């Protein structure tokens, strides 16, 4: 029951930072169960959602990600008892920071997905990909070079890309 392949004008790059105890296994289960989900997501496995430093998300946006996805265990299920609670607080504030900075917080998605919730994983990822696709490309920090002296380099870079 594979999905119909649709060709889009814009394929967003989505960076996912996930906890290895829950979401990563959930995604793994989705894979072994032959479920389809959006291929735009690139996953990085971390020991806990509490390990996800906002620095990772800043770097992801800086390196050209259009959306960032963070996922950990449901409250109370953390392998380290409380890591996901810290992650929750950190992200509450970080989202507001990004908003104040002018980045759409719709581009940052946070979810609780357990190792059994393979279906939830596919649903959340598909929905998020669709949302980011509608939002379009993330305003890149390096998309325009103000200094005309460096124009050549950018052109060269684009030619070779």
């Amino acid at each position, binding site marked *: 029951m594979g999905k119909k392949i649709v060709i889009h004008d814009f394929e967003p790059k989505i960076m996912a930072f996930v906890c290895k105890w829950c979401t990563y296994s959930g995604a793994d289960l989705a894979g072994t169960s032959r479920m389809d989900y959006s291929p735009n997501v690139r996953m990085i496995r971390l020991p806990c959602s509490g390990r996800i430093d906002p620095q990772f998300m800043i770097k992801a946006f800086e390196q050209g990600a259009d959306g960032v996805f963070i996922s950990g265990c449901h409250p109370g299920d953390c392998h380290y008892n409380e890591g996901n609670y810290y992650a929750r607080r950190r992200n509450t504030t970080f989202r507001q920071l990004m908003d104040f900075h002018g980045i759409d917080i719709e581009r940052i998605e946070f979810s609780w997905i357990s190792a059994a919730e393979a279906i939830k994983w596919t649903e959340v990822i598909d929905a998020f990909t669709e949302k980011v696709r509608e939002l379009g490309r993330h305003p890149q920090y390096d998309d325009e070079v103000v200094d*005309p*002296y*460096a124009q*050549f380099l950018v052109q060269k*870079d684009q030619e*070779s890309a």
Partner: protein
Amino acid sequence: MKTATLNKSDIGKCIDLLLQADLRVIAPRLQPQVDEDGPDALEVLTFTEVKSGEGHQVGKGLLPLNGVKEFLFAKHEPLFAYEKRGKKIEIIPVHHEYPQTVIIGVRPCDAASIASLESVFSDANAGFEDPFFTERRSRTTFITYSCTAPDSSCFCTSVELSPDSAKGSDLHLTEIGDGRLHVEVITKAGEAVAKQLQELLKGEGDQATREKAGAEVTEKLTRIRDSAPIMDWLMDTANFDDEMWQRLGEKCIGCGACTFVCPTCHCFDIVDENKGSKGYRVKIWDSCQFDHFTLHASGHNPRDWQYKRYRNRFNCKFKIYPEKFETPGCVGCGRCIRACPVNLDITEYMAEVAHKATNPNAIKAE
């Protein structure tokens, strides 16, 4: 030397004429503030590229915060690009296209600093020529504008300059009253620019009034220090361990504000900016005030405490520049004084050194 007069109100038109001649024009501009009239808002005047003659601040305000340094010695300059292909590397050289640039509204202190930077980056320094600096320099013309209202931090007269000095300038403007400017053509590049502005320049200048106006402004400077004995005092290596460095410098917090706003500070770092298999090697500004600036790989740091770093900065301005590069290291713009969050004042050092140099016995008796 040719002279002329120009109406002050025509500067906007001048900029338009220069833009029409396909020149890149850089002029002081006010930057937008969130809240223009709020108690926290300060006028932020910077040199920026302008696209029309409107809204320029030439001759208004005192000194743009950034100075002209960044248009010659960019704060971020790609030196070359590289690409890794397996075990091989390809170096892609950069062929920068340098537009002819005119910087208008440069104050005399900033203009005087160009020669100092040039002495570091040109081949006069050990035969190595920084092509990025020299190419930009050769395509940049400076239209300077004498100061009219120096503030309490200015001290150009203490370092052998004056508010109406034309040193380092290509075309020099001085206010001579009645909304008129006295125009002096100093160099060939200045002459070329003057030719573009032909239709706005009128008759002969008024040299006598210009000199009088300059002298009047010079009178207004309040911060006057004696810089003559500094170099000799610094040359004595015994004074390198003088107690004053530590006493004055202990409040320094080690931010790089003074070095980054300084028109003659030239220190830089070279780093790689990598993305995947490609990247650029870039030259970026650095500051001798940072703690890792001189840190050796072994962990040894020759300038391990902050006061030693400030001592190096002072030595750089008043000893290294004149001795090694044979140009003045300080142009008295006062930016470091205005920028310092803890009011560490270079002129306090100057006064202290001058005092020590002229009264060596008095100090020893203490």
